[in-house]
């Protein structure tokens, strides 16, 4: 389970294709002006996440095959920017969902997780003891703004202002386009990792009230290392969105992102808990008891003779 998620290919972005299942596998019909319509078989079991852009149609059978292989399918906007919906693979252990909801529902533990997230980003000991959510947000804003200024100076861009308004998409500068594009790939991968663990993408610790709140929480851990410097390096690129996806993929390999996301989520949600996950194929559904914890399912628990 864990090695499978970590070993797989990170993402595949497709748009303007028809995806269907034939006798042998899931294939995409790609149409190009130069070579006409061609068929491309997709390595469903090897992919952790597929981003489907505009102009894509997919059959229910193909979608079911992705679901059976635990591949997350994201419906995204043009260039992988904005994520509208995602599928959830079935048959997962709920161990990590339980850790997540317990930490999330208790306000003290929620603040502790949020603090741990900030310390993971900016180094241990950077948060003063007893800081509340409001103070944490303040520190984060300052740090990110300082990073934007530093990189803008380094690449001689002048003033940089983060903007991701989809209504004025085409008029944005290359850095903003590249950053949005790389961030959506990052969201897709983080979303896939969260779903692969069986956690809820909706229960965020810092972000709140959105079906992807936890995705944004976890993705924020890696932006300063990964997507923000990448986006600034593409400030002269003629096609910043595709270039961002391409260089992001190389960055992922060097950064070993998927295994890192999985262990980071595990250490944030349950510090000190053993992080190996049992094989879901081997595990029966357990019953829960408030005093003894989990009780094996699949047996008759009638007391007495």
């Amino acid at each position: 389970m864990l090695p499978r998620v970590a070993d797989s290919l990170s993402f595949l972005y497709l748009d303007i294709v028809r995806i269907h299942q034939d006798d042998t596998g899931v294939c995409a019909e790609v149409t190009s002006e130069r070579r006409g319509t061609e068929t491309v078989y997709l390595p469903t079991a090897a992919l952790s996440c597929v981003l489907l852009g505009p102009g894509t149609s997919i059959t229910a059978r193909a979608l079911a095959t992705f679901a059976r292989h635990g591949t997350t399918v994201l419906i995204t906007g043009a260039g992988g920017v904005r994520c509208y919906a995602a599928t959830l693979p079935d048959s997962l252990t709920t161990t990590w969902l339980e850790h997540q909801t317990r930490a999330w529902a208790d306000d003290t533990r929620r603040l502790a997780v949020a603090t741990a997230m900030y310390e993971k980003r900016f180094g241990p000991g950077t948060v003063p003891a007893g800081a509340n959510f409001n103070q944490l947000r303040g520190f984060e804003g300052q740090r990110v703004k300082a990073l934007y200024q530093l990189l803008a100076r380094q690449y001689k861009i002048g003033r940089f202002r983060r903007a991701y308004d989809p209504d004025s998409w085409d008029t944005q500068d290359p850095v903003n386009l590249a950053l949005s594009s790389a961030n959506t790939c990052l969201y897709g991968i983080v979303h896939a990792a969260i779903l692969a663990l069986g956690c809820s993408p909706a229960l965020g610790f810092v972000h709140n009230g959105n079906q992807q709140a936890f995705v944004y929480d976890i993705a924020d851990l890696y932006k300063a290392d990964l997507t923000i410097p990448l986006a600034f390096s593409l400030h002269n690129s003629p096609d910043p969105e595709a270039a961002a996806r391409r260089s992001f993929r190389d960055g992922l390999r060097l950064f070993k992102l998927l295994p890192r996301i999985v262990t980071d989520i595990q250490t944030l949600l349950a510090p000190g808990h053993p992080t190996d996950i049992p094989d879901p194929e081997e595990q029966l559904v357990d019953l829960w008891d408030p005093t003894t914890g989990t009780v094996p399912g699949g047996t008759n628990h009638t007391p007495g003779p």
Partner: protein
Amino acid sequence: MPSMIVISATAVPDHLRGALTRWLLEVTPELYIGTVSARVRDELWTSVTACTANGAAVLAYPAANEQGFTLRTTGSRRRTPIDFDGLTLMAFGKKSQEMANLF
């Protein structure tokens, strides 16, 4: 440093098959496997591309990318690698697809 290479060569002249078997094992008809240096690999590929006009050939060898390998193809009857923002998948024409669905 030598690394493993795989060459599949379809409808190529006999002299090329001889050249390939000097360096590689023909494990099954038209499929060659061996461990050679980058220099030998490039020389072999040059001689393959020189005489696969109507056939097809593909070379795969390890590379430091996400998939772990790189593909090269040549010849007129080949399938084409397509790059999806850094991920390489194979595309082939509609005709062969229809043939596969006949039965």
